[in-house]
C-alpha cells in the first residue's frame, strides 16, 4: 500500500495501510506518542482501499479491509477516513483476536486493580472511562478489555477514545485541545471526536491489572444501584464478548473465573457527575 503506519496498543500491534495519505496523517497525529511494534511484526493488518479503483479520485469512499473481513461493512466517505482506520482496527480485533477473551467493555485501573464497565452502545462507558482516566485512575481502554486466558488478568488496550455526540463537550471541558482528533460530523454514529489517552495511560500500556469490579452502567435513568446475579453477569459478558464462542472451553473457563472472583452491579445515572460518584462508592465497597 502506498501509505503505511504501525502502532502498538497494549499487547496488540497493528499495521495500517491506506491508498490515501489523509487518513493515516490524521491517525499519526492522533496517535502521537504511541510506539511501533518492537519486533516490527504486526498482529493485525488493516487496509483502507478505494471501494473501486477509479473511485480513488472521483467521490472517493473508503472500504475497510484486512485479514478478517465482514462482507457487508459499508464504505465510508474519505472525510471519515480516520474513523475508517479506527473501525478497521476494531474489526480486526473483534474477528481475529485469539490470545485474549475480548470483552466489549471500558476499563480503568487503580492500585493495581481493574474496573470493567460494559453495556450497550450509548450506555456511557467510553465517557466514564475517559473521565476516570483524568481523575486519578489509569485509563486502560474505552472499547475492548482483554482478559488473559490463563491468569485472568486484564490487559490494557488504550486506543484513542471514541467520543460521540454529547460526550465530546463533556471531555472538551476536561482535557487540553491538543489531545483531540478532528471533529467528524455526520458519520453513521453521529458526530465523533477521538481523544488520545493521557501520558499515564500510554506510558503504562504494558501493565496488566487484576479485575476487581464489574459494572453495567446505563445513562438516562434516575440514580440507582442494582445487584446482578452471577449467572446473569456470566450471560451478559458472553454477549459482550466478540470471541467467546470462538475460544470454546478456554473462554468459558476464563469467564467463569472472572465472574466468580469479581463483585458486580448495574448502575443507572442521569449525569456523569452522579456516575463518577457511584463508581467511586462501589469501588470503595469492593476494596
Amino acid at each position, binding site marked *: 500500500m502506498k501509505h503505511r503506519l504501525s502502532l502498538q496498543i497494549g499487547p496488540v500491534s497493528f499495521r495500517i495501510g491506506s491508498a490515501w495519505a489523509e487518513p493515516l496523517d490524521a491517525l499519526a497525529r492522533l496517535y502521537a506518542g504511541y510506539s511501533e511494534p518492537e519486533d516490527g511484526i504486526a498482529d493485525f493488518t488493516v487496509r483502507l482501499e478505494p471501494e473501486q479503483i477509479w473511485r480513488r479520485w472521483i467521490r472517493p469512499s473508503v472500504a475497510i479491509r484486512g485479514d478478517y473481513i465482514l462482507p457487508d461493512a459499508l464504505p465510508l466517505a474519505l472525510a471519515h477516513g480516520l474513523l475508517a482506520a479506527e473501525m478497521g482496527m476494531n474489526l480486526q480485533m473483534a474477528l481475529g483476536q485469539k490470545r485474549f477473551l475480548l470483552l466489549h467493555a471500558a476499563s480503568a485501573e487503580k492500585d493495581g486493580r481493574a474496573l470493567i464497565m460494559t453495556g450497550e452502545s450509548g450506555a456511557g462507558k467510553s465517557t466514564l472511562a475517559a473521565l476516570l482516566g483524568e481523575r486519578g485512575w489509569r485509563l486502560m481502554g474505552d472499547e475492548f478489555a482483554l482478559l488473559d486466558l490463563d491468569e485472568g488478568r486484564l490487559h490494557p488496550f488504550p486506543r484513542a477514545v471514541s467520543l460521540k455526540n454529547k460526550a465530546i463537550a463533556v471531555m472538551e471541558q476536561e482535557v487540553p485541545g491538543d489531545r483531540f482528533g478532528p471533529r467528524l460530523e455526520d458519520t453513521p454514529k453521529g458526530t465523533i471526536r477521538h481523544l488520545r489517552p493521557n501520558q499515564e495511560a500510554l506510558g503504562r500500556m504494558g501493565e496488566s491489572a487484576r479485575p476487581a469490579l464489574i459494572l453495567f452502567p446505563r445513562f438516562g435513568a434516575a440514580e440507582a444501584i442494582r445487584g446482578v446475579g*452471577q449467572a446473569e*453477569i*456470566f450471560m451478559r459478558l458472553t454477549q459482550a464478548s466478540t470471541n467467546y464462542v470462538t475460544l470454546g*472451553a478456554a473462554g468459558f*473457563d476464563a469467564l467463569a473465573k472472572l*465472574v466468580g472472583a469479581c463483585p458486580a452491579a448495574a448502575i443507572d445515572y442521569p449525569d456523569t457527575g452522579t456516575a463518577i460518584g457511584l463508581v467511586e462508592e462501589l469501588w470503595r465497597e469492593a476494596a
Partner: protein
Amino acid sequence: MAGPRYIADPEDCVRSVTLDGLSVLFHRPSGMTHIVASPAPEILVALRQGPADAAELLRRLREAYDFDGDEAADAVDARLAELEQAGLVRRA
C-alpha cells in the same frame, strides 16, 4: 409402556460452574453455553450412569434425593424435553 430412553454426554464433555445456585454449563461437542437450574444438573448426572427412560431416571434420582411422587415425575418429563431441545441429552 416404557417411554423413550435418554442418554447424556460423559462428564468430560461438559464443563460446569455453579453461580448463585444456577449451573452454567459449557457443552464441548456443540460449543454452546447453557444456564440451567435444578433439577437439570442432577438429571444430567443421573443419566451418565447409562441410558434411562423417565421412570428409571426418577428411580435413580430418588436414590440420591428426597422428593414427592407425581409432581417430580411431571418436572422430570418437562426438564428432559428441555434438555433434549438444548442438545444436552439425546434419545438412546
